[in-house]
């Protein structure tokens, strides 16, 4: 967790460079799943990230885990991209560098902003079907079979490839990284670094300019609680508590505590 406010008031963007430096846990689960499927199906796994140049470390980690290659999308013009602009950029990169993809796996959300939007929006950009918050993926022939728990339903779904799946954070045991993998990752690695020009993207369509949403400001919520102090006879205090915090407590315990004569 970043210790200072990762907010740049000049550019009105969150400074993700301060908060990054580790692979997002949900994305790690997605990679885990991809590597398992890759081994089983004899498929190539490409790890893709968009971020500041230091995000290359994450691709090295992915390669150490077993990914075949990495694609880093980095460009100052991308700073301040919201999920709309981010998914647009990722889609253009995938169209150029992975045109024959069968399956895209993403984490279901990131730990910094938790929007959970980039995966589904990337699927829309690419015009492919998708499913979110998936726990298990198997591939048979040209079809992905998925299992997920969604809003109290255990669902089994089928989608024809190519498709996109966002992967839940539920535990897949982390992969053992072999020494040879580490050597591979820190030697000459197959990581391609591309910018906006390489993707043929008009810079006006990405970054803060290309983002429909705009951050007005960022604040640290009041950490100190109000700390209301009540004194007096127990019966009086309890009445005061329930009157003053009636709606709050009703909401929290999901039961109406209004006095019957008040209705």
């Amino acid at each position, binding site marked *: *967790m*970043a210790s200072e*406010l*990762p907010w740049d008031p000049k550019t009105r963007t969150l400074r993700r460079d301060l908060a990054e430096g580790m692979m997002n846990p949900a994305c790690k689960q997605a990679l885990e799943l991809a590597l398992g499927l890759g081994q089983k199906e004899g498929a190539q796994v490409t790890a893709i990230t968009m971020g500041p140049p230091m995000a290359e470390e994450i691709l090295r980690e992915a390669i150490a885990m077993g990914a075949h290659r990495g694609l880093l999308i980095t460009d100052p013009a991308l700073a301040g991209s919201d*999920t*709309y602009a981010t998914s647009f950029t990722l889609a253009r990169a995938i169209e150029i560098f992975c045109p024959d993809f069968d399956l895209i796996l993403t984490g279901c959300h990131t*730990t*910094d*902003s*938790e*929007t*959970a*939007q*980039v*995966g*589904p929006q990337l699927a*829309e950009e690419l015009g492919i*079907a*998708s*499913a*979110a918050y998936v726990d298990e993926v198997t591939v048979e022939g040209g079809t992905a*079979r998925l299992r997920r728990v969604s*809003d*109290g*339903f255990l669902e*089994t*779904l*089928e989608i024809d490839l190519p498709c996109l799946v966002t992967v839940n954070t539920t535990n897949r045991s982390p992969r053992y990284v072999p020494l040879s993998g580490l050597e591979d990752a820190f030697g000459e690695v197959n990581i391609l670094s591309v910018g906006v020009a390489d993707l043929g993207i008009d810079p006006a369509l990405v970054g803060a300019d290309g*983002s*429909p*949403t*705009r*951050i*007005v400001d960022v*604040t*640290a*919520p009041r950490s100190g*609680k109000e700390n*209301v*102090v*009540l*004194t*007096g*006879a*127990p019966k009086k*205090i*309890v009445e005061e*508590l*329930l009157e003053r915090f009636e709606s*709050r407590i009703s*909401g*929290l*315990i*999901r*039961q*109406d*505590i*209004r*006095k*019957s004569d008040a209705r």
Partner: protein
Amino acid sequence: MPAQRPEIWVFGDYRNYFQNRVTLQLLSRATDLAEKRGALVCATVFGWDTGEWVGEYIAHGARKVYLVEDRRLGRYSCDLYVGLMERLARRYRPEIILVGATSFGREFAPRVAKRLKTGLTADCVGLDIDENGLLVQTAPAFGGNLLTRIVTPQKRPQMATVRPGVFREIPHDHGATGEIVRIDFPEDMPPDRVRLVSSERTLPVPRHLGNAEIVVCGGRGMGSKGRFRNLYELARLLGGEVGATRPAVYARWADEDALVGQADKHIRPKVLFSFGISGAIQHTAGIVDAGFIIAVNKNPKAAMMKMADVAIVADAHQVCLALIKEFKKRLRA
């Protein structure tokens, strides 16, 4: 044919209790926003045999319901619902679309936003209208350590998702009336690309202290085993669980299972009642994620009292009894 009056749409997510609730909560907030904006509160309902929900949404604030009813919509389908919402929004041009942040809503809303080429803010904890008539969306970032205020200045509609429980629904009004706009299922709608092979309800997660939303915690200040037992009565009334500090467990007032603390159970209730607990760090480390805290202690300077939202300076046992009595009167479950 865009509507003459700006419209605020709430996506009718009716599948089960919490989805239904979040829709009602959004209708309530939309009603406040509509007043500021001079707008009309509308709900969308996609499904089959949905009369119940249409009536429910009107009773909770919707003045207009856009209804697409067709056998093909009998099962929740993200693909079809996204396509329908896209078409409806293009035709009627709502100014705002609000969606509950259920698993379904979190997949549905981003895709709708993308198709409509507009912005979306996830998991808003606040929604307001500013002096320019823009929807100001307050959302947590970095695990809730920061709050960001976000607007969508140019693109329309402005879209936001909101978690269940953030807003309070307005009471059911049987007398409320609303217009129902029936729309035929478009025959040129592309087929669902996702095949639902099977769907079954999952068993509810068994309730225990670690995941309880309501916890009543007691410490040495309860005075005796007999008095401590009243905490179970209070917890039962509220539908909560009982936790205890180390001294209370050592005195055998409560089982080891109930022990809350740094090296023991960590609890994250939405509301915590704390009785006769001074607040040693070994205990408070286990309750850092508690929401609303009501603490009772004779000593106003106790650490537990300082970290409470409401600190009641009184005898824990007496307040416990008074609370039981008062809740018995007020709760009619």
